[in-house]
């Protein structure tokens, strides 16, 4: 059971991370790429760490695994926010399929002040 859980979490995590990498590769613009990493990437690494917790089921190790997961989940969205915001400041190219952008207009306004 432990082995199975470990293997499952490991594999799922690895697959998610691969997915994140693939997303990073395939998505057309910064914002969409970030969708991939901030979700799949964070969850993937979280799961893999969880696999460690499952493998050992020792309190000390579990605690550390949880700490890693908490930190990842706390930091990933903030980092994504920071990068996206910075991207707007410097003006990234958006995918041509983007429907609308309420932020950009205000941003330009704000900057021109």
């Amino acid at each position, binding site marked *: 059971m432990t082995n199975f859980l470990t293997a499952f979490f490991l594999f799922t995590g690895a697959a998610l991370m691969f997915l994140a990498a693939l997303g990073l590769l395939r998505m057309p613009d910064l914002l969409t790429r970030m969708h991939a990493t901030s979700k799949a990437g964070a969850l993937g690494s979280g799961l893999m760490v969880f696999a460690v917790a499952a493998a050992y089921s020792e309190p000390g190790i579990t605690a550390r695994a949880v700490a890693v997961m908490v*930190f990842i989940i*706390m*930091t990933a969205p*903030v980092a994504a*926010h*920071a990068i996206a*915001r910075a991207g707007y400041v410097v003006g990234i190219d958006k995918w041509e399929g983007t429907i609308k952008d309420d932020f950009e207009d205000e941003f330009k306004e704000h900057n021109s002040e």
Partner: protein
Amino acid sequence: MSSYSLIIRTATAIMVPLLLLFSISLLIRGHDEPGGGFIAGLVASSAFSMYLFAFDADSTKKFLKVNSRILMGVGLLLAMIAGFIALAFGQEFLTAQWLYIALGNLGTLKLSTPLLFDIGVYLVVLGTVTTIIIALAKSEDA
């Protein structure tokens, strides 16, 4: 001047104490597990770097409360004192000294010069990195 980002500031406010806590944990257990004064000091420094990015140099300075150069000096002195303690026992400089204080049910409190030394390391690393980043950020603001 700093970018005003509510989200980053809020996250920083949560992360900084966590990081500091973590750093002290690394410091204390460093003799037995990965960690130690350097690593702990660096983690603490990254907490302050984070604070600096979220706020600005002056508030980081205030947050630190002690002048960072003096912090370095104190750290250096602590580390040296840790070395000199051995001389009082007629041993070579930097020879480790251990003191066990029994606390009844609470277990034993282990005090040692290596720990004191590591605390010195911690303070120096913290002082160093904060000195550098605050000075740089200030010049950037200027």
